[in-house]
């Protein structure tokens, strides 16, 4: 799966920010981004953006929660996704794992964090649960490669 770091076109960002974004729209968004080669960030300066949430021991991944997410700028959100992805999708453990793309993580966090009871949900937990079911989601959405 392709992932882009801290870089997205605004139109895709805006669409992914909307709840209930349809599968087709998401697919188009993903395709558009792929074609765009993971271009510029929403503000164009995402390299400067810091992830949101409380940092502990060099990372926000352990403590970042929905209440941090909802107040973040687009660039901060992408930086947060990158931090969480680097902690959850480790490459040092002999088992690899599916990584959520930026747009998929945006959808998960935007959808999940919109729930009124989710203000303190840990983003790393939401990410991990969604990633665990990502292969199935791709089949359900018609995004999976054809069967062998």
């Amino acid at each position, binding site marked *: 799966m392709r992932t882009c770091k801290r870089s997205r076109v605004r139109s895709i960002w805006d669409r992914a920010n909307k709840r209930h974004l349809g599968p087709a729209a998401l697919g188009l968004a993903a395709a558009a981004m792929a074609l765009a080669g993971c271009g510029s960030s929403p503000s164009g300066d995402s390299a400067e953006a810091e992830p949101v949430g409380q940092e502990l*021991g060099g*990372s926000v991944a352990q403590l970042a929660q929905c209440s941090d997410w909802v107040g973040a700028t687009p660039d901060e959100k992408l930086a947060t996704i990158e931090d969480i992805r680097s902690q959850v999708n480790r490459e*040092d453990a*002999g088992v*690899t794992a599916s990584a959520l793309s930026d747009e998929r993580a945006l959808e998960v966090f935007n959808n999940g964090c919109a729930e009124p009871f989710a203000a*303190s949900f840990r983003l790393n937990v939401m990410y991990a649960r969604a990633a665990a079911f990502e*292969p*199935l989601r791709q089949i359900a959405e018609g995004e999976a490669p054809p*069967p062998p």
Partner: protein
Amino acid sequence: MSEGPRDAIRRGRIAAAVVIGAMAIPAVASGHLERPSYWPDPAPDRAVSPAAGGAVPKARSLASAVNGKGAGNVRVVCKRDSLDLALKSIKSANKRGFRLRPSLPKRKISDQKAKQLRHANRVFARECSFGSIQKAVDKSRNNDRIVIMPGRYTEPKSRKAPVNDERCNPSLLQKDQSGAMTPSYRYQAKCSNDQNLIYIQGRAVKGEPLAEPDPDRHGIPEQELGRCIRCNLQIEGSGARPEDVLLDAGKGYKDAQRRGERPGSKGTSPEDCLAAPDGQDNPCYAKHVVIRGDRTDGFVGRNFLLRGAKEHGYYTEESDGVLLDRVKFFWNADYGHLSFTTDHNVVKNCDGFGSGDAVVYPGAAPQTGEFRDEGFYKKERFNTVIKKCDLHGSAMGYSGSMGNSVRVTRNNVYGNANGLTSDTISAPGHPGFPADGQKVDHNLFYSNNLDIYRDDAPFVPLVPQAIGTGIMWPGMNDGEFSNNRVFDNWQYGTLLVAIPDAVAGESDGNADSQNHCPATALPGVPAASTSCANRYHANKMGAVPNGFGPHPALAKFGNKSGLLDDVVPDQLPNGVDFWWDEFPTSNNNCWYNNTGPDNTRDSLTGDPPLNPAGANTSLPGFLPEACASATGSPVYGAKGVLLLECFAEWESGLAPDGNCTWYDMPARPGTPAARADQAEFEARMRDLGKTPEAKRIDAYMQEVAGEVNLGPGE
């Protein structure tokens, strides 16, 4: 040609295996992030005498701390009024008695025991030379022990230590291969109170961590494994009750002396408590962890209360040999207890509530089960036991990612949103993929109906959980759930689901070399790896044990319980006794010899339902009862979509509020509201089965199955 049931089963199995292979993407996850962590050598370390680790340590008696017999020095920690508090508590325990756990009756200590305790505390008061537990720990060496006299210990010096201390951050952060930064062992040793109120460094810092972590997690790498410096350490309270000795990382209490008080209760909401930045001005939390024990082989902790951590009450990592006895965990915002990559590990006679995740969490437990590395673990055994605890008043009573070969027995689990979860939603960073070999037996799971998502929730729920659930296994293999009493859980008694993943590449120590799910013969296709060979048997569902009734803490935080009826009923059904997702490759799961509310098989409830043909058979579309022939179902689409929604916050758009009911307070089973909810849910499931998403899942599997050459004899 028509297709018989056997063909259908076989097709389902093969199809799903291929689907998973096509996914070719393995497990992920986590509830807990840590440095690259290794299972300690399970052999005793004989460089210390007596040897450290190799077995669950035995607690030394309090009396032996008085007479000084045995190995090691005794250090006593006290407050000015400790002796008065001790004598008062002993008198109360002798005259009026106390409950060690809320579900137990009050018991008095004997006159003889009271006399011994009074004498011991008088001696300790004379010998007390420490006001700080951390100072006593720092002075201690192998085999030493620390006695803490009654009082509330806030450790002012530790509280002043900065979080993310510049002496260690970033210079002692450890980078993994992905570039993720985590505090190293040396970080914790040097900046010991950065995160922790009390830090116990079990072994010396020897060398640098491996530049690239070893994917084989059997054994802490030699280059960083220092000698024992505080192995076989014992820390215990000298009071009559665990609550007499309070180790407190919280602040902002209305009344700090009340043991059940929440940090920040003086006027800060739970949400604001958690959102406030770390540091001196935080209104609720002084530290993230109350006690952290790192590589503390042979550690014993006994008879105290850990309260008010922003994350965890007790936290141990890479330790061989840990016993916690009569320890309580109140109001620790994440986990009350967290053990990680820890062996020979026992927690017993515990009690906890107020955790936004779980009261106890044995995560990344060593792979000591059927598919262990027999060169490293000679015998198959349980490496961790949680027993005789009250786990309540939290999002979960118990949770554990990759909780291999953990036994959970004789506990009372009640008043949570979900009583127990043990999952395979953590591969990277959680050694031991996939989770297997858990045994849950002789427990009571009841009235787990705490609505933690309501507006005035008593604590902050950090994780999504299904309200009204006894136990949930997302991705467990070879689990045994037996001889439990499960009743009055309004949504699910038990729930078993597969995590749709697979092991990619070679397993090399972190992942098991084999697993209990069926291998596929298709070249290049990895085996499906979760939710196989689980056995549920000899459980009594929906029936209240004779003489069982309400007890303190049952209704804590507004928890709903049928036990609170004017007359306790004989039967308190679960929403559904056994819910199973029927994932196609989930083979050899079985439910047998269980009974329902009227103590017969007929009164059990299941989704899928029990088969009408009678016990001891496995038929497609029904709950399997014969283990060897049990298979998943080829028709998984509707449940698959539902689980996507529940686990991944992914909405199908079919219903305005979604189809997942996990986060809604369920109605009490047997009521008209519950029947209406059930009817609506069944209708939604039928509709879900017709959605494009569900059809794609089913079609994908069918298409794959059609292309599979089953070979001669198939």
